[in-house]
């Protein structure tokens, strides 16, 4: 592997998948993280990750401390949920998401004491299995937005893994959460990565950062100077460099086969804040209870990078940051991949990195006109898909064509919709096409 890694750094800028330019709008980039005071209530949905929903482990009127286990389920693909505050469980109720699904949620009223649960102590980590086991009880999931349980990603066959990639690209416009983590806490990032490398035996880690964040690049290069296993890989500041398969291709030249995962081609990829949380958890044993989000949007009076307790309702966050007018659209996440919210009582959960509130004018999207076959979607798709043909095949429910067009390889970055001059809802169509294709593939497999 030696010669392979030697060439990597030189390739920093001539990446294969270029992406497109989208105005970055990272206005809060140089603002220190501020800490939001305790909210009036904490709403903890029992699914804040990819996988099985947790079951509430607390009862109504029960007292909880900071770090008390609130949600747990006996399943492999899940991640425990912990109370970020001390207080009393007010109720356990249903919570409805804007996509129509719903989950149980535990509502806690903080008592302001912030007493820490007695069970919290730094984990005993001696080898890789004990590290995975410790992270399993940390509540840490992919904090870049994916929400994949981190311990589960780590719990893989390491024999063919040669690179431990860390994603600090943060290619979404507006968002600065990962950037602040890199600038403010390089030490926990590096200690988290170093521990993982020590125990896993993986020989190399690259922190991938876009070139519009020179301070983060410099800070992490300095912090990693003492460890020659850890290096920084500079990506061009073009969307969507942070998509996992784009990073993999641009850094290692590998691509994930259809239906496969990064581990199939020898790579693991973690968000940079996730790694930092792992480092922090190994030091103090406090499970994931807080996170930083970027609050922005044209009706937000004081845009900022805000550290909030997980479960803080977005209405309280917007009240804290101030609103110049009533928002027409509230997005959790970034403008490209974020999800519009049905109401202000939804909470920030652990994988959310941004909160955008937009006024009337900024909320509307332009009307859709006829496709002029300009091929902008085809030429800008990072995965080299053909979005317009996929949309057409989906409209005809032509599953064979969707299979031929490999709609299942879509990474949902939204580039096709962004560039479309006719403003066709390409990303939404491809998303639907992908789920149609996947369900048909599942059916076909069951039939065999």
């Amino acid at each position, binding site marked *: 592997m030696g010669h392979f890694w030697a060439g990597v750094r030189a390739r920093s800028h001539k990446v294969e998948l270029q992406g497109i330019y989208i105005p970055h709008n990272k206005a809060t980039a140089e603002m220190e993280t501020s800490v939001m005071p305790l909210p009036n209530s904490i709403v903890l949905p029992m699914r804040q990750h990819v996988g099985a929903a947790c079951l509430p482990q607390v009862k109504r009127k029960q007292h909880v401390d900071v770090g008390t286990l609130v949600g747990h389920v006996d399943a492999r693909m899940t991640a425990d949920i912990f109370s970020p505050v001390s207080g009393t469980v007010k109720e356990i109720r249903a919570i409805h998401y804007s996509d129509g699904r719903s989950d149980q949620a535990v509502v806690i009223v903080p008592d302001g004491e912030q007493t820490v649960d007695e069970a919290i102590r730094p984990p005993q980590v001696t080898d890789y299995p004990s590290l995975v086991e410790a992270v399993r009880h940390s509540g840490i999931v992919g904090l870049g937005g994916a929400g994949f349980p981190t311990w589960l990603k780590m719990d893989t066959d390491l024999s063919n893994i040669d690179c431990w990639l860390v994603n600090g690209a943060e290619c979404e*416009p507006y968002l600065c959460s990962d950037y602040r983590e890199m600038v403010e806490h390089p030490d926990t990032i590096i200690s988290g990565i170093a521990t993982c490398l020590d125990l896993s035996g993986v020989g190399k880690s690259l922190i991938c950062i876009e070139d519009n964040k020179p301070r983060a690049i410099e800070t992490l290069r300095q912090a990693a100077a003492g460890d020659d296993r850890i290096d920084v890989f500079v990506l061009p500041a073009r969307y969507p460099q942070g998509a996992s398969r784009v990073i993999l*291709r641009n850094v290692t030249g590998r691509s994930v086969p*259809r239906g496969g995962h990064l581990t199939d081609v020898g790579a693991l990829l973690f968000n940079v804040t996730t790694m930092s949380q792992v480092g922090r958890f190994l030091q103090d044993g406090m499970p994931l209870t807080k996170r930083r989000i970027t609050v922005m949007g044209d009706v937000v009076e004081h845009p900022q990078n805000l550290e909030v307790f997980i479960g803080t309702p977005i209405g309280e966050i917007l009240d804290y940051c101030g609103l110049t007018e009533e928002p027409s659209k509230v997005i959790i996440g970034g403008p490209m991949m974020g*999800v519009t919210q049905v109401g202000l009582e939804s909470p920030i959960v652990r994988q959310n990195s941004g909160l955008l509130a937009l006024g009337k004018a900024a909320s509307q999207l332009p009307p859709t006109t006829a496709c002029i076959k300009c091929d902008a979607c085809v*030429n800008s798709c990072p995965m080299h898909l053909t979005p317009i043909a996929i949309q057409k095949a989906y409209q005809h429910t032509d599953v064979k064509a969707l299979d031929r067009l*490999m709609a299942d390889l879509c990474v949902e970055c939204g580039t096709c919709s962004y560039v479309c001059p006719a403003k066709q809802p390409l*990303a939404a169509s491809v998303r639907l096409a992908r789920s149609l294709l996947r369900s048909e593939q599942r059916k076909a497999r069951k039939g065999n």
Partner: protein
Amino acid sequence: MNTKEHTPLLLLTAPQITSPVTTQVIMRNVLIALAPSVVAAILLFGVPAAALLLAAVVSCVGFEYLWCRIRKTPNTAWDLSAAVTGVLLAFNVPSTLPLYMVVIGSFVAIIINKELFGGIGRNIANPAISARIFLAVAFPVAMTTYAAPAMAPFADVVSSATPLASSAAPTSLVNLMLGTHAGVLGETSALAILAGGIYLLATRTITWHIPAAYVGTVCAMSLLTGRDPIAQVLSGGLLLGAFFMATDYTTTPTTNRGKLVFALGCGLITCLIRFWGNLNEGVAYSILFMNLLVPHIDALTPNTPVGGERRRQPADGEGR
């Protein structure tokens, strides 16, 4: 918790932002790129050229507007695509053409070629090119009565041959660049067309694939058959076709590979017609012919998605 009543929040699928480029912006870019040639045509051919351009643009936009009103479909007349068709149509006729003929051409371009196929984005053949071919068949004499450019040292309005006609005397390179030779409105000044082409490339309205492959093929064929490649490229409608008509989004293949194949075909057919055919000019026919092959080119030149390079492995694990 904020308990006051709110108006319902908008729910939209991602992404929540979109680029400022719309169809109209693209068409405006094409019109800007056509502007140098418009100026050149009016300088060279005077008032008749201006009248033809005006008639073609007004009638194209008018036909589109009327169609949308009568059919009660969304009005697409102001997206400027009909205006582009109008300018290109006028560029494809000689300055002596009676105005009513160019209006007939507009009807063929917009109504028959575009709207009957479903409007913008749905037409199979390039509207301006099919209208040119229609006019050439319907009015063969009027379509080949070229006026000598006003600035050229020729006699007044005469039926003069284009530089590609076998009877024509050799035209100098300077004349070809400036356009001071006989021809249709937009095919004369190579310099003006190149300026517009560079603008289209710089604004990324088009990619290099089609113009480069088209012109390159004609150059190569000229060299192979012992003809002067520069004269072949600069005369006739080649540059206008390569930059403005063979790059029409709707009637060209999707992928860059497909575009190269398309342009190669255009170049080959142009040369076949020019060198060995019965016509002086082959650009329009070559583009029309290749337009019809686009679905097949598309089917044969798909992009390979990242991760789709290998065949799907059987019985792979479902999403974790």
